[in-house]
């Protein structure tokens, strides 16, 4: 029994190693990319489209709508980043229905990697949207005394992102493992279903928080120039 899939190392050469987290992530990446490629191979621009294309369109448009609802002015721009965030976490969490599967989101390294990506992406989008000076000024709002608190807030929310997702996913897997040893029938299934729900909710929470951070980094700009 191990706490994180990182601990299951498949291959190691000095600093470089291939653990279960990385390999599972690659598998998920392969599945997502191949699935997308297969479905979008014969895209139709007619009114009548295939069921798979409809499914993908619904997902993509729902994500886009969600980003738009949070308050960003150009959802297409953030769709790649935020949509992938949601799809990856959702896919990673949904695959827990397969026995023996350990979600990469149950590894703090993965959630920390994703949180760091968000941590870096937010100022990048902000600077791109309003320039370096304009973005840095937001740390002095409402007064310059707030600068340290703003910086702390920036770091702590990134930590919270990483820990929240990790904790939820790790605990789900752990609970399931423990329950399997205590009551091997019925109850683990119920918990598994609950785990699926938790996984979806966490995917939603992670990506919606990232959206909110990005929107917040660009929103003042909109307020100033409606």
């Amino acid at each position, binding site marked *: 029994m191990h706490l994180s899939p990182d601990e299951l190392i498949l291959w190691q050469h000095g600093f*470089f*190693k291939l653990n279960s*987290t990385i390999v599972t992530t690659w598998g998920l*990446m392969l599945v997502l*990319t191949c699935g997308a490629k297969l479905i979008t191979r014969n895209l139709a621009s007619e009114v009548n489209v295939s069921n798979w294309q409809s499914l993908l369109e619904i997902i993509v*448009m729902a994500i886009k709508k969600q980003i738009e609802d949070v308050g960003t002015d150009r959802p297409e721009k953030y769709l790649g*980043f935020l949509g992938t965030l949601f799809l990856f976490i959702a896919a990673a969490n949904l695959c827990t229905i397969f026995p023996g599967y350990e979600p990469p989101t149950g590894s703090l390294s993965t959630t920390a990697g994703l949180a760091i990506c968000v941590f870096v992406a937010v100022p990048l989008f902000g600077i791109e949207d309003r320039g370096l000076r304009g973005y840095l000024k937001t740390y002095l709002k409402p007064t310059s005394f707030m600068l340290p608190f703003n910086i702390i807030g920036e770091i702590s929310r990134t930590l919270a992102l990483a820990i929240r997702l990790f904790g939820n996913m790790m605990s789900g897997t752990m609970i399931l493992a423990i329950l399997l040893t205590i009551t091997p029938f019925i109850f683990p299934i119920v918990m598994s279903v609950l785990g699926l729900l938790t996984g979806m909710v966490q995917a939603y929470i992670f990506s919606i928080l990232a959206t909110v951070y990005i929107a917040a980094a660009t929103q003042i700009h909109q307020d100033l120039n409606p």
Partner: protein
Amino acid sequence: MLIDWFTVSAQAVNFLVLVWLLKRFLYKPILGAIDKREKRIAAQLAAAEEEKAEAQKERDEFFRKKNELEGQRQALLSKAEEEAEARRLQLLEEARQESDSLRRRRLENLRNEQLSLSREMIRRTRQEVFAIARKALAELAGADLEARMVEVFIHRLRNLSGSEKDRLTSAFKGATRPALVRSTYDLPREKRAAIESTVGEWFAGPVRIRFETAPDQVSGIELAVNGNKVAWSIADYLSSLEKSVAELLEKKAGPGLQAGVDEHGD
């Protein structure tokens, strides 16, 4: 240690690669397809809108033409009505004129009939009067009408006024042809002699007189010389009789005639 920094960086890179891959294979094609479809639908809607506008235009055009035709129809109808009315009035006028002329002709005919009737009556009356007078004279005076007529004529000759006598004398003197005595009936020799002697008395000598019988022209005896005349004629009496008869006829026949005219005039 829960965090393995190699894994963290590897996962971050993995994530960024996935972002690129999904952008390339998922978002771009899907959004492109949606955009294309939206554009296509928008184009179709625009085309439909255009067709609708075209249809509306054609509909308006159709209604305009229909109204125009209706207007033309009304105009033609009213024109035809006017023409029919004018024709009706013309026909009425013609009928009235025809009826007027018919009435006039009828009146004319009636007048002619009246005239010829009165002439016939005059002629008959004259004959009757002669017949009565002749009979009455023959029965009452013992002499026939001719004798009495001659006597009356001779009496008139003798009692001519001075101016008349002078006029006749001068006429006799200037005459190149003999004087003419015309009578309704043939005069006997002694009556002729009486007339000749009476006229001869004026000149103290014989005169040349020619005797003629003209029953239709003279209703009595007439002496004509060089354009001058002395006559006794029943025509004088007859003319007054004719006048009174004509008046009587006018009075009697007038209302009836008028009624007949009115009846035909309506």
